[in-house]
């Protein structure tokens, strides 16, 4: 599986995503600069990593969304290519319209970093097929603006179409319907606030994130 990690100014989990992917695929990940207009050829998976792109100034992900590389990412998604947005990456995806809704300031108003229990709601996707339906996993969250918001109609659609992928067991940020991660209509774009790339190596405290990457590797290789 060939993967690319986008680097926006002040992305800071780009290396983490790359190391996780490299340790599991054995391939080098392409680091793609936000000002590039094209992705490398034959990319299977595009990752928008966590971080504080543009300092989270104005709104999280708002300015990163205006980057030149976004056109190529949208094209990749339109063709059915897999796109994974983690934390700040999820914020960029909602700003771009590739995913519905918006991520707002945590209801508790403070940045929160801790391991959280998530229920895997949907295994019918290229991202979650190696999990068991309803399985509880633990990923760390680390964000100040992870409060997922969408209007009632959108939320009902997400639920009805099986597009809520991960749900918080103890909501850390006030997200509507405890939503931690969602899929787009075509089921090839996943955005989630928790960090699966941080639970791939047992030394870091857990390996629940592996199955997400294995699902992708199996499907896309």
């Amino acid at each position, binding site marked *: 599986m060939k993967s690319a990690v986008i680097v926006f100014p002040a992305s800071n989990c780009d290396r983490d995503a790359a190391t996780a992917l490299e340790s599991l695929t054995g391939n080098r990940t392409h680091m793609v600069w936000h000002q590039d207009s094209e992705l490398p050829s034959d990319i299977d998976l595009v990752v928008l990593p966590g971080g504080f792109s543009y300092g989270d100034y104005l709104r999280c992900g708002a300015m990163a969304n205006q980057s030149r590389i976004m056109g190529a990412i949208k094209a990749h998604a339109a063709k059915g290519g897999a796109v994974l947005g983690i934390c700040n990456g999820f914020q960029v995806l909602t700003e771009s319209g590739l995913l519905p809704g918006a991520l707002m300031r945590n209801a508790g108003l403070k940045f929160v970093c*801790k391991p959280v229990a998530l229920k895997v709601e949907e295994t019918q996707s290229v991202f979650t097929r190696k999990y068991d339906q309803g399985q509880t996993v633990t990923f760390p969250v680390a964000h100040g603006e992870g409060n997922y918001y969408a209007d009632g109609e959108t939320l009902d659609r997400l639920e009805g179409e099986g597009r809520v992928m991960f749900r918080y067991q103890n909501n850390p940020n006030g997200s509507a319907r405890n939503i931690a991660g969602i899929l787009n209509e075509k089921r090839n774009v996943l955005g989630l606030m928790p960090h699966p790339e941080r639970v791939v190596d047992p030394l870091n405290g857990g390996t629940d994130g592996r199955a997400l990457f294995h699902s992708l590797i199996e499907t896309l290789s």
Partner: protein
Amino acid sequence: MTEITPALITEHGLSLEEYDRIKGLLGRDANLVELGVFSVMWSEHCSYKSTRAHLRKLPTKAPWVLQGPGENAGVIDIGDGDAAIFKMESHNHPSFIEPYQGAATGVGGIMRDVFTMGARPIAMMNALRFGEPSHPKTRHLVSGVVSGIGGYGNCMGVPTVGGEVNFHKSYNGNILVNAMCVGLARTDKIFLSAAKGAGNPVVYVGSKTGRDGIHGATMASAEFDDASEEKRPTVQVGDPFTEKLLLEACLELMATDAIIAIQDMGAAGLTSSSAEMGDKGGSGIELDLDKVPQREENMTAYEMLLSESQERMLAVLKPGREAEAETIFRKWELDFAVIGITTDTNRLVIKHKGAVVADMPITALSDAAPVYERPFVERAPAQGKPAYDKAKPVLASLEKILGAPDMASRRWIWEQYDNSVMNDTVQHPGGDAAVVRVHNTQKALAITTDVSPRYCRADPFNGGAQAVAEAYRNLTAVGATPLAVTDNLNFGNPQKPQIMWEIVAGIDGIGAACRALDFPVISGNCSLYNETNGEGILPTPAIGGVGLLKDVTKMATVAFKRDGDVVILLGETRGHLSQSIYLREIEGKEEGAAPVVDLAAEKKHGDFVRKLIEAGRVDTVHDVSDGGVAVAVAEMALAGSIGASIGQAGLPDAIAFWFGEDQGRYLIAAPFAVAEKILVEARDAGIIVAELGKTGGDALVIDDSARIAVSKLRAAHEDWFPRFMAGEEIPLTN
């Protein structure tokens, strides 16, 4: 030409004698710009004039030390061509005035000190001291400082992995915010600040210069009084977004060989960085302020030289490499300007609007800065054993202590810090030391910050030694070999002889411990004049320790892991209660003698424990410090969610046994067969050991009689901080 009057001189924080000295060095009167430059370069914060004579006595060398004090940060060799670079620095006065930005810019400043040497920052820690919880400003300060540290560190993507927090009324008017940064570099790619050679371009990179923080260095060197509120405009605002870009751009440039020297612009900005680079390199520097990227209009030379605008670096490049460097900085959307050149005159010459506005010999600014041997009055260490009620029930007191402000869980704080970004955190906040893997290797660094200010007031020498000993124990307890120390010395007014005594004795105590433990000081910072309306803080020489785990899989944590493990107490317990947490929290007394540190025993016990961990024989270790054995056992039970059944060993006085703060002790929990061997080996080595009991169950049971559920201890431990902060102000940031 502005006349240099005595009033102007004192306004600049200089004494009339100091000005006479300056006049002598210049061979004439200074002009206003030059007066400003000297005022910051000769401030306590920049020149260390009150402490240099004593800091020289500290041990700074070891075979693994590549760079001791004198550079932006210290450097140690951690094997395989890897180096760890670290330092701790204070931002006390600005944090009291504007807690969010004061703390944030403190974080930014110490990170720059580390990455200017070529190291990618991999971990942050902080040592915080606040006033008593009942003081009206405390909540606001805690909230602001924690938000500021998180706001800056999280955006930089560097994990904040631990620290310490104390509350005490002596900090009511002067909080302490000490930030520590650890970075990784390759030993053959360390960047120093000596600007050797003439004719090399001096380049400015980062943010534009504004009027921020002018005289920040002089503010750091002064006490507060009731007029300090008006100093608000001098607090700088940090931009971690720009600093992250600056970090990446600098590391990119450092991968080439274009840089001769590089220095970050911190306190006293352009002035101190250019003067220090010239001084170390034995060269002169000529700057043209017209070339400095400016954020405001009509900035004067004085303002530009003294500005403490953040996120700026000064570098000396090899001739001809300017364009290459500029490409990198423009890619990262940062300002870049060639603003000067190195010369062979050994003078700092400043030009503005076509004229020379300042011309000073560089040695006058740094080397010739005064070194004071301030008078001190020796004070005998506090003596005595205060009386206490020996019949108070142990477990009830334990519960109360676990919920005391200095002992309660700091989860409220560290869950606001990203502690796992960069994917190398192996031990998160809450243990004896943080452990961060050296990326792509089997090695890891252990990091801790420690000091017990109450001991330092009672006995400055022993207090200084104890701080180092506790850092040594904390690193050892996770399995690391302690390698080096960075010290952040926070004291009151050094012009008071009794305070100067605290400084001198404290430094001596630190030195003695560092020598005995092979644990040299490689960097540090002094913050003096921490007094308000004449009331000073407890002497607080914070020690930041770094150690190395050669194999990260051979590591210990504090959590009990199995039922039926034997709990061993290693080290002698005489029941030292004076100056203890118990005495303060339960009896309301802050009296008596501080515990004495037996440095030979610390080394012996530490080496013994570390070998057990390195051999993979034990995985559960905790050092014994604040609150004594009872608190240490409770902490192990809470971390592992496993109880224990333990009994007094060797002392008739229950309270003295369970809460005494004798030094040099560790708790180890191991399966029976392993434990039995350890007991024999320890006794053979002449180390006092006692079997306390066994792990298991869901309660802490003492002497088979008193019992408290682990869940009850957890409630006491976790409740205090969030309840206390619930009256907080909303952090109105971003």
